[in-house]
């Protein structure tokens, strides 16, 4: 009985195995929707992109679901954010993927953070007394459009290596992406220019590259330390600092609880802005360009509503 069951199972397995996947396009898996969006810009119809973490999900705390094993099993190229952002979930998935192509160090494993501008690289001693620090620097680097350009370049280079026949196609699309990004950057910078140096408070340290690109000034965080939930004393300190410096904006990622930010806003007359740090964070931020369009628009609305300079 057991043997017969085994034979049937093997026969079923062989059936599925035999089905050939005759798809010419490269199967690209991206750890986040941001990377997926940029990869799609470069790869066009020559690649099929599957994102893993959703934009409205905290990318530090994604569950290593077995369904991701299947996604990775079929990948020709895996693009990760890097800088230890996915350390809590991606490594076991890669090991279980049974896919030699995407193991770290292989051609099919791309970490574009290696060529991006990384901020907050810790100097001196790093201990966990500082909270959940990233010893390799702030991993939210895609929030500077200049880094978007660098990511695009890294993806173009790798796609051309994996699929040399379409190298010209990728190069042409990357050039086009770069051109559109430059235009958009001028627009975003112009919109944000009147508010250069505007002081804000953010929930997590997700915005280092964003404020670097658009000239905002983060004076504090709702979290006392990265990954440590707000404490009453720290909340009081933030309220006092905001009152002293007349800060009217609290930027919160969509995956954080609004209770503490709202109570801070109540006591300071500030406004809580739920700002997506990733493509897909809100429905409007459906690609890399629309992410910045959305964030800039949300910020401008909030600035107008609070009447800040």
């Amino acid at each position, binding site marked *: 009985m057991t043997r017969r069951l085994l034979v049937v199972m093997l026969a079923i397995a062989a059936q599925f195995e035999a089905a050939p996947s005759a798809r010419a396009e490269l199967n690209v898996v991206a750890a986040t929707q941001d990377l997926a969006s940029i990869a799609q810009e470069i790869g066009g119809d020559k690649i099929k992109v599957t994102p893993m973490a959703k934009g409205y999900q905290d990318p530090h705390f*994604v*569950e290593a*679901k077995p369904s991701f094993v299947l996604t990775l099993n079929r990948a020709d190229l895996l693009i990760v954010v890097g800088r230890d952002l996915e350390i809590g979930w991606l490594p076991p998935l890669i090991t279980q993927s049974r896919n030699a192509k995407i193991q770290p160090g292989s051609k099919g494993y791309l970490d574009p953070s290696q060529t991006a501008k990384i901020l907050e*690289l810790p100097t001196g001693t790093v201990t966990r007394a500082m909270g959940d620090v990233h010893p390799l620097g702030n991993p939210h680097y895609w929030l500077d459009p200049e880094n978007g350009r660098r990511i695009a370049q890294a993806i173009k280079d790798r796609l051309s290596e994996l699929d040399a026949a379409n190298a010209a196609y990728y190069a042409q699309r990357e050039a086009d992406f770069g051109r559109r990004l430059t235009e958009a950057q001028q627009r975003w910078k112009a919109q944000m220019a009147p508010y250069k140096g505007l002081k804000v408070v953010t929930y997590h340290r997700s915005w280092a590259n964003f404020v670097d690109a658009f000239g905002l000034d983060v004076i504090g965080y709702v979290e006392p330390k990265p990954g440590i939930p707000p404490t009453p004393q720290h909340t009081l300190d933030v309220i006092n600092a905001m009152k002293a410096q007349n800060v009217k904006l609290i930027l919160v990622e969509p995956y954080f609880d609004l209770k503490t930010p709202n109570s801070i806003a109540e006591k300071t007359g500030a406004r809580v802005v739920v700002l997506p740090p990733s493509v897909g964070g809100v429905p409007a931020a459906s690609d890399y360009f629309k992410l910045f369009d959305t964030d800039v628009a949300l910020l401008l609305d909030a600035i107008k509503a609070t009447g800040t300079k």
Partner: protein
Amino acid sequence: MLHSFRETCTAIAVLGALSLAAPAFAQGTQGSQEDLRAQIALLRQQLDALQQKVAALEAAGAQRPAEPAAPPTAAAAPAQPPVVETPAGAAGAAGPAGSLPVYGNTSALSKIFNPDIAVIGNFVGAAGKNDVETLPALQLHEAEVSLQAIVDPYARADFFLAASPEGLEIEEGFVTFPTLPGGLLAKVGKMKAQFGKANTFHAHNLPWVDTPMPIRNLLGGDEGLNDAGISVSKLIPNPALFLEATGEIFNGTNDLFFGQDRGDLAYLGRLRGYRDLTESTNLDLGTSFVFGHNDGGPDSTTRVFGIDATVRYRPLRRAIYKRFLGRTELFWSKRDDALDGGTAFGAYVSGEYQFARRWFAGARYDFSDRAIDTALRDKSGSLLLTFWPSEFSQVRGQYRRTSYADGGTGNELLFQFLFSVGAHGAHVF
């Protein structure tokens, strides 16, 4: 060599002196005696000079063997820490610029390849009364040291050493080959058997302070089934769900099995299916079977069959604040040497709900027959509360009532402090 040199020099000098002196004597009448004397004096000076040179050479020659031991002049240069060039790939636009300092001697270069090291302390305390299982009031139950790294392009290795009051034990130590052809994933070494769910977790990763009753009664005890062996698993591609088949062969001498001959191995098979129901909810089902020889006699064997089911709910937008995990595992154990040939049955049902960013509440009901005397059934019920100060530490309390088959009872409060330092690899889902 030096000796011959000195002799040669002396001989040349003497011969030279004679060759010059001889004609002088022959010409006696021609040259004055004073000339002759002057010449002799000159020759003597030359001879002395030569002898001095020979002596000096000889002295230098005697010192020469000692020279290599003398500190080379380079060592006098100011000591500078050796540096390693940043690997080409790491030369990010704002990555660590240039070269990284490396301390100690040049062998410190090997530190770059050191594995990720972590230590997890598991401190367990017990209060209240239990007539049967007497846990110590306070105990560092275990210090688990993990060492994990990529071996080479084809393999990675994981070591988990558990130091407990019973001694130091290799909890697991295995190599994984993730890039085998045919979509296979193989592990070789000492490892936890892939039987069900709870058996595969390390103590610090369980949602309870203790281990459920059926694992203690039917799977070899607190530590569960853990042995040296080979594990191979394969994905079974299909359009509907994640399906994974695992086959394992173990040495067959562990807490559950007792193979007397080299051929008395233990065999395990597992089939696991998983499916996302929605983006927040998923269902995980598995069935496991293990077979091996036991200590009841030369041909006495044990078979254990298990079914496990897990349902998870975790809304993605609030993933760090809210989740629910419900799990049940059922075990059937058949020992050849069981009294009156019965089958022992055991199971647990457990639920864990996260109600705030750092707070979890849980409950568990578990019971199990005993493997040999299958008519005896132990039962227990628990309520749990867990607090996470951060990702790296955890405090847990478990109220547990136990009713043992032979009349004993337990009414206890177990509490646990878990604390982790270093880089501990992420856990398998």
